[in-house]
């Protein structure tokens, strides 16, 4: 059996989740930009970063914990439903893009795709749950805001990956890499 979650990895995931949750909470204090529910989604930087650092499963953990705890703290239970569904769709597609198309498309573009999907899925869900076809009128605007905010999130993640030196993550990632590779349980 290979070790999926080492102690160091769990610690780093905890830090990422905490950062994500804090930015999510700070963001929720600001009113939305022009359209109901529209926001920048800076907290998703940490989900995308976790995806790049560890992979799909681990970033899903960050996403789920952030969305569920965030929704409970600000007291918006419906937000959890939208956030989880839209987040799951966006993250899955981002994972596929990163895994199969990565050097051909940049992190920024992957983030744009994720944000666009996230906003579209969320709008459709909101219309279905609240039974308000009127809300579809905002779809174009929300998609546009999604692309812009996705670009910003992608840019921040790009800079984080670029600027933070390898030595910071080496100790955490090299062990998991070895265990994940051919030689099992080489290092504990």
């Amino acid at each position, binding site marked *: 059996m290979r070790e999926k979650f080492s102690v160091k990895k769990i610690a780093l995931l905890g830090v990422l989740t905490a950062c994500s949750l804090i930015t999510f909470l700070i963001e929720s204090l600001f*009113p939305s930009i022009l359209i109901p529910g529209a926001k920048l989604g800076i907290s998703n930087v940490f989900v995308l970063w976790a995806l790049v650092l560890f992979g799909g499963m681990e970033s899903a953990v960050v996403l789920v914990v952030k969305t569920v705890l965030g929704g409970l703290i600000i007291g918006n*239970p419906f937000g959890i439903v939208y956030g989880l569904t839209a987040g799951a769709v966006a993250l899955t597609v981002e994972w596929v893009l990163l895994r199969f198309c990565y050097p*051909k*498309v*940049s992190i920024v573009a992957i983030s744009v795709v994720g944000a*666009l999907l996230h906003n579209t899925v969320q709008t459709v869900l909101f219309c279905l749950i609240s039974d308000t076809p009127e*809300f579809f009128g905002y779809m174009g605007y929300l*998609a546009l805001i999604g692309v812009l905010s996705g670009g910003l999130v992608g840019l921040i993640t790009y800079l984080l*990956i670029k600027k933070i030196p390898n030595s910071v993550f080496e100790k955490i990632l090299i062990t998991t890499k070895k265990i994940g590779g051919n030689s099992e349980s080489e290092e504990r």
Partner: protein
Amino acid sequence: MKKIDYFDVKNENKIFRKGDIIVYAVAVVIIAILLCVFLIPNQNKGSLQKIEIFYKESVVFSYQFSSKSVIIENTDGVKVYTEESSDGLVVRIDSEKGHNVLLIKNHSAVMQEADCSVYADCVNNFGAIEKGGDFIICLPHELKVVGIGEVDDNKVQL
């Protein structure tokens, strides 16, 4: 199966790749389509004439701006009260689901209070209703406030 490797990603990390052009082009096309499909039919909204409040699909309150007339239909499980204040007409909606306060001003309406949770979507996220077609939705209380604009079918058909 190959895992996503951080150091490989880092080595290949560039702000722009050729494949991005396709991604951005597709995004622009999608936005353009969405804007065209959903915006053009909504352009002739007209100025605000009437405010209607729906509770579980039935109209419980309506307000005509021109005549300032109020119609309240108390159905099962919901009670609507109005009171004049210095800011405008305060509409209190008490239902089995919870309590909301809507403020109707001269040419707009805004949700002021809701007791669903600390963070109320209808108060914080939805702005004011200022023209026909605007709306405020309160999901937990199953309320929908809709602004109805001028019905100018004759003009449009020319």
